[in-house]
């Protein structure tokens, strides 16, 4: 028997063992399939139906038109900083790095890829203008978030916690309950906006993904602290502020509204070490502050870009800021928000008078930081600051 015939017979035997139709191999050869294809199908141990699907029809040569898609062939992205690896900023090379002021494709096409022919369904995005949500540093902030990742379960010294006086522990737990809910609620609000952002601004969406994940970790970590040391969960956080964020009808409204809280939160965590009773809490506040500093950078850059692109929308921003200022001031007066802070700042229930004074000073710095952040974005708010917050930064009139 010639070698080829022997090989063919062996192939037929393997095909029979796999349950292929009698004669399938011969028909495949007639259809133009070569030994590679038949041998590959046998090696893959395709079942009878699958083998027929593949081999029992005329061989259609591959189309491969996708190989002709125009690309910037030969343009290689390389790391600008070896320590940071290949970053998103590094891959913004050639036309792939051009973020359009107006993105017009309503499909899920990856920016820079070659559009498919024909009609493709609308994916329902609503954000097509860059200045609506973009900030120049989003790619860097995203990579920074990844480099600075931490784990609440293992990066905090849970075993180092020691029993605290009951009033102190309860105040910490009330604060943690509030902060956990605030972080979670903000992540939920931001998550709802992800499907609105088109692929033209993919780097922005990556960054917002990292923000949502940061906030998840904050929600988790604050809750863990509330439950780790014998205290427990307290009263739920006030809902005025978060409700306003959920009411936002546009991304600029949401961003302006959250600007108020984001500023206040960062200022708070920046000095929350003064409230800490142990290293775990100092570390937790510092980590939260570091994460929130990235978010604040985004907020300032976004607002500056937005105001530059839409100067006619400047006055409108006052409305959203005012709404948030009123609600935040109201929440600051809430007993379950104000009193735990005063208790911690005063060193206990007996020191609450001093604590109240220290809290007023902290609130003043929070408002000042808020106004400074707006000023950094090129927005003058001080003259129109709502009276409920102005009261914290201006001395009482006699």
């Amino acid at each position, binding site marked *: 028997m010639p070698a080829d015939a022997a090989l063919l017979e062996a192939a037929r035997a393997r095909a029979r063992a796999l349950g292929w139709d009698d004669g399938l191999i011969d028909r495949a050869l007639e259809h133009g399939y070569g030994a590679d294809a038949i041998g590959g199908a046998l090696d893959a141990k395709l079942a009878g139906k699958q083998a027929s699907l593949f081999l029992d029809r005329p061989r259609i040569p591959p189309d491969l038109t*996708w190989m002709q*898609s125009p690309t910037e*062939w030969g343009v290689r992205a390389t790391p600008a900083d070896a320590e940071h690896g*290949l970053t998103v900023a590094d891959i913004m090379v050639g036309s792939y790095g051009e973020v359009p002021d107006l993105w017009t494709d309503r499909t899920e096409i990856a920016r820079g890829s070659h559009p*498919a022919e024909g009609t*493709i369904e609308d994916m329902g995005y609503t954000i097509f203008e860059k200045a609506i949500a973009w900030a120049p540093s989003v790619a860097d902030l995203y990579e920074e978030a990844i480099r600075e990742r931490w784990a609440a379960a293992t990066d905090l010294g849970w075993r180092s916690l020691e029993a605290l006086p009951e009033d102190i522990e309860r105040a910490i737990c009330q604060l943690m309950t509030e902060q956990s809910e605030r972080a979670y609620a903000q992540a939920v609000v931001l998550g709802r906006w992800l499907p609105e952002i088109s*692929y033209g601004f993919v780097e922005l969406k*990556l960054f917002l993904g990292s923000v949502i994940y940061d906030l998840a970790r904050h929600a988790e970590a604050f809750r863990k602290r509330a439950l*780790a040391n014998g205290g427990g969960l307290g009263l739920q956080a006030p809902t005025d502020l978060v409700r306003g964020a959920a009411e936002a009808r546009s991304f600029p409204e949401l961003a302006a509204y959250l600007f108020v809280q984001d500023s206040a939160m960062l200022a708070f965590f920046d000095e929350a070490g003064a409230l800490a009773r142990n290293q775990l809490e100092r570390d937790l506040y510092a980590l939260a502050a570091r994460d929130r500093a990235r978010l604040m950078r985004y907020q300032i850059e976004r607002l500056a870009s937005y105001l530059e692109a839409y100067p006619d929308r400047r006055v409108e921003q006052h409305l959203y800021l005012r709404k948030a200022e009123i609600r935040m001031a109201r929440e600051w007066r809430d007993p379950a928000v104000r009193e735990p802070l005063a208790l911690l700042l005063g060193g206990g229930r007996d020191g609450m008078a001093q604590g*109240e004074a220290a809290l007023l000073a902290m609130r003043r710095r929070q408002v000042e930081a808020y106004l400074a952040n707006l000023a950094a974005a090129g927005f003058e708010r001080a003259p129109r600051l709502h009276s409920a917050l102005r009261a914290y930064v201006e001395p009482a009139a006699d």
Partner: protein
Amino acid sequence: MSATPETPALDLSWLDLFDEPAAVEPSDRGLTLEAIAANGLAAREDAPRDMTPRLRGASARANAHRQGLTYQTKADVWADQCLALYEEAVQRQWSSARDIPWGELEPLPDETERAVCQLATMLAEVEFIAGDVPGQWLPSISGDEFEVGLFLMSQIMDEARHTDVFRKRALANGGGLLAQGAGLGLRNLLDAKDFTEMSVLMHVQAEGFVQSMFRMGELIGPTAADKRIFRMAAQDESRHLAFGVMHLKHVLAETPERREEIHHYLDRAEERSGGGSGDVTFPPVFESLAILLGGGRDHFDEGVAKFLLLRRRQVREYLHRLDVAGLGDRRERLGPALTPFAA
């Protein structure tokens, strides 16, 4: 004129809310969500709910706003392993910038580079949508099942990383982004009107198909960097998939009357030409995979045979996962595009 804010009289009623103190001990995995869900704080099917942003266990405020409709039954969103899956996600975060050996990429034959880039282009699209979908559902999750929300938030981060790593791969070795993957059936993931519908279509079916492909990354990826990308992404996908399977299992156990409804979602998804989202039969994807699996354009037919093996693996693993979740009868009503691969 302004005045220093008036300091209201002390209330301090919040100090009386802590009536059952119990400390929680960390384990060798640190202080986990499972540990803090002890002491009566675990999610319950019969928990009183209020649709406010309150997270489970906190005392309710009498004046709290409702925040919009949320699911009022645990079974609608729960997956038994979601606490552990979230913790695993946090521990296993990785960096596409530093954990992929980009420096080891070397010039490939043009056809191979184009095939890798085509696959990466398709995946950069798929993963983009996979991040939008969980975001869309966050507002529907009650604070009583906030761990589901945390898990979805970790998934958003995972999908961002996947979008980023596949985009990086397309641009790292001189290829570029190729053809749009139109027709991948991704719209149906966004169109879901129920959490379970979304989870079955995205976590179980779409991510299941993608996961089966990633697990063949050793065969598909022509370089060490490609193989590593698939391995790392597969690690994340396995969590998303596990969530979906465990959620489906919970739904079927708690609300067996939903079985036919869930079949209906799958019937519709499988009617699509290739069998649902994560479809790899779209020509540019199919052909690029065949080139990569076969080892070049000259071995295209050999690659097609291996592609069929991949397809078989996808369908068989899909059926196995449904079986584990309690939907083993799916095998009898599988869509025609998938049936040949079920054997």
